[in-house]
């Protein structure tokens, strides 16, 4: 029933807020895919811990209560661009009732293109 659904707000890279619902146990990747959220290139490896494209930034109080990170997740998370103290991979975080109405931020995937240095000069 709709009472069991958990609401999650995603702040997209351009600042736009996307709101979606999921069932307890759904991963945040499931929520993005099932709700067709417009987050570019999210979940390229389909949740197999072989990329870092589902990198998300959590609020402090939510982050503290998340299940401990595994070595495999850590290996991939380490490669993510713009890592923060409250970063995790969305495909590994499953919805719980206590997460209802939480907000997660989708970090930039690369340096802001408007400010990019032409890296070809450095090679």
């Amino acid at each position, binding site marked *: 029933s709709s009472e069991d659904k958990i609401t999650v707000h995603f702040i997209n890279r*351009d600042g736009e807020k996307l709101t979606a619902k999921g069932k307890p146990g759904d991963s945040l990747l499931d929520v993005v*895919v099932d709700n*067709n959220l*417009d987050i*570019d*290139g*999210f*979940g*390229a*490896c*389909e949740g*197999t*811990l*072989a*990329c*870092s*494209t589902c990198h998300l930034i959590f609020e402090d109080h939510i982050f503290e209560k998340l299940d401990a990170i595994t070595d*495999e997740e850590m290996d991939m998370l380490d*490669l*993510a*661009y713009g890592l923060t103290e409250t970063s995790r991979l969305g495909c590994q975080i499953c919805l719980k009732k206590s997460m209802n109405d939480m907000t997660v931020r989708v970090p930039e*995937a*690369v*340096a802001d*293109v408007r400010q*990019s240095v*032409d*890296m*070809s000069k450095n*090679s």
Partner: protein
Amino acid sequence: SLPGEKKEFLQNGPDLQDFVSGDLSDKSRWADYKGNLKREKGERLHLPPWLKTKIPMGKNYNKLKNTLRSLNLHTVCEEARCPNIGECWGGGEYATATATIMLMGDTCTRGCRFCSVKTAKNPPPLDPQEPYNTAKAIAAWGLDYVVLTSVDRDDMPDGGAEHFAKTVRHLKERNPKILVECLTPDFRGDLNAVEKVASSGLDVYAHNVETVPALQRKVRDPRANFEQSVRVLKHAKEVQPGVISKTSIMLGLGETDEQIYSTMKLLREADVDCLTLGQYMQPTKRHLKVEEYITPEKFKYWEKVGNDLGFHYTASGPLVRSSYKAGEFFLKNLVEKRKTKAI
């Protein structure tokens, strides 16, 4: 009521007679195509007409599919959903089917944001019969030119280089005349692995840089980068001086013309011989959106730039992929070069 320009379009645009007669222009020139080519925020671009392909079917296509399945072989054509599959497998104008065999399974250890090949942290172990079966299948087809490629296997100490090399050796044993092109991973920059494959007897060593340096981080897995890929291409030639090197770039991911040009220059400076340029197409909704559809005319422009820069050949077109008509370009080029030598 309708805005002025729409009213004008209704007055002056095609009418029922045009459709019935079947006479509409083939819309391969961008001037005839009225849709948007550059993505605006929040939208998803529609596929322009020059990128629409026929559904693959036919005797050749089915025969190939069955042969591959019976030998437990995979093709990147199927796994990455190549739009040319009908044309290449069907045999094209010269009735020679081309397929790009994907070695080491259909599951990759990386998740790049442009590629829909399956990903897993620990894919199934390699099939030790694969080098033998592949050589057998290719011999059965009587192909003149074959492209071998693979998934990334970061879970293996040599990245699968020995398996790759073994396949080439078996192939050349069975058919010394066949031309072999290997499109390899970066082996995480392991130059010994590169050497293993480069010295296996292949004719063309290919490795794709995929995009301009500024977009590497956005498009490819973070374990890949431009400098590493160029090192791979350079090293192949160092350890095997007679080999031809080749690379490929996808356009339409947001790169600028200046970036494309400077990338092409960098590649030529690294003595890369052959270059292919194609249009990026979004394989699934979990992958990057197309930022721009480059027109056929623009692709032709880049082909000229490539030729002027001195590449042996530059294959450039919306549907061109790394191994599209690879045999034909190579052979045509080789034949022409040999002719000028003989003169």
